[in-house]
């Protein structure tokens, strides 16, 4: 069994690349003073929305050579995450729960609504994208698989949210759009890694019960709600809009979540290895 350092390590590489992407956009905009408008602005926003997912998929395929996951499965889960976001997640939040009409009216309503409606709905859909597709198959045969597939679903979800936001706003300033897309990608990918770990735990650990999975989805939903609540607090300061603050908060949050998931994963794999070794010794006797 591979003992992975991939969660924190690849998370760190991914995060560094995404921050570099934003810095590059900032430098290009500063040097060229480019200010696209109208359709060009929307187009740039859509391109920026795709960058985090493209970076992650490229990194994933570059690293996953020893025991590669089927490319079609990973891409399929990514696309399913995107499809669930556009066909279920966004319509339910916007048209059924109509969160824009009430979410921002009170601080308590914002926090509870962010967790119980937006957070739960989004994280459940990311969970479902893995649980009801690749999860029951024989391809889902390692602890790390839960994190890989859930991250793919989370990134698909984030990509559609980004594209949807850019189109709804009719574009945004280039650096702001780049930061927004990166923050969303980091957030949804790291929340998804928690769900992925829970899925693996329930599948590979005999003693893990229903509570592990419920906790996985609920913790991801709580983090989802809290994170965007904090984002709003650090980015919008009175009349000021400070997107870089949001990026810093997202990087810190992703580092902490990936670190915790890495620790949990290592501990679980070590426990399982010890158990297998003990079983092998007893068999040999």
């Amino acid at each position: 069994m591979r003992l992975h350092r991939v969660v924190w390590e690849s998370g760190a590489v991914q995060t560094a690349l995404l921050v570099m992407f934003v810095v590059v956009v900032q430098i290009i905009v500063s040097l060229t003073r480019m200010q696209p408008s109208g359709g060009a602005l929307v187009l740039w926003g859509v391109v920026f929305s795709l960058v985090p997912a493209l970076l992650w998929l490229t990194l994933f395929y570059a690293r996953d050579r020893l025991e590669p996951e089927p490319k079609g499965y990973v891409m399929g889960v990514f696309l399913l995450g995107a499809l669930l976001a556009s066909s279920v997640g966004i319509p339910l939040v916007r048209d059924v729960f109509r969160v824009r009409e009430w979410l921002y009216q009170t601080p308590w309503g914002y926090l509870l609504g962010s967790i119980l409606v937006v957070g739960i709905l989004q994280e459940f859909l990311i969970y479902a994208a893995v649980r009801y597709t690749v999860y029951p198959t024989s391809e889902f045969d390692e602890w790390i698989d839960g994190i890989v597939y859930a991250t793919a679903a989370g990134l698909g979800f984030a990509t559609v949210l980004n594209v949807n936001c850019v189109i709804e706003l009719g574009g945004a300033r280039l650096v702001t759009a780049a930061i927004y897309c990166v923050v969303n990608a980091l957030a949804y990918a790291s929340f998804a890694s928690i769900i992925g770990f829970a899925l693996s735990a329930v599948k590979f650990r005999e003693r893990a019960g229903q509570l592990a999975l419920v906790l996985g989805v609920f913790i991801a939903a709580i983090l989802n709600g809290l994170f965007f609540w904090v984002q709003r607090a650090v980015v919008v300061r009175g009349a000021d809009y400070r997107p870089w603050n949001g990026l810093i908060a997202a990087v810190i949050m992703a580092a902490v979540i990936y670190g915790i998931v890495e620790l949990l994963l290592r501990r679980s794999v070590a426990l399982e290895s010890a158990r297998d070794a003990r079983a092998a010794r007893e068999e040999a006797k």
Partner: protein
Amino acid sequence: MNTQPRKSRYYAVVVFSALCLAAGWLVKTAVEGRTVRLVDAKSGVSLSYPASWLRLPEADAIVTVIDPQSPGPFSTSFTVRTGPLAGSQDPSNLAVQVSAERAHSLALYRTSSVEPVELSGVKGIRIEYAYAADPVGIAAGRTSIPRVARAVDVVVRRGDLAYYFTFAADDVAYAGVLPTFERILKSVTIHQGR
């Protein structure tokens, strides 16, 4: 290694998520149901309007509130004002007078229904109508396409004083916000003013 998930382990997530969404719906209902109570001692009018609506300063009205989340440039509004009203107490006479006032001040004023009502124990009339609204206007330095607005006047009369409760909304939003207007009307009480 076990690779076949046991189905019984997974129902809890679905049930739990559904319960959370139900709780979220309750939060939505609680937030949307919040109201602000207005008591105007001078006119004796008190009523409750949605807490998310904004109160506008208007000199000739007891209160004017608008829904800031109205779709389009014409905001949903609710206004209460009083004014002297001469003539008989007869409701049909009241309807004629109110309609004449509206026809004078509103473009393409068209009445769709007139019926008697009783508000807080005071008899009056309810007139539903439509008109052409100019939400931005040339005066604001911009030109805009006129909107079809739909409105309701509930006018009750106490002595020589008429109480006007006016609700107006863009045609596309009207049906959706009419229940809110009805809730506001239900909350109205009219006492003898100072």
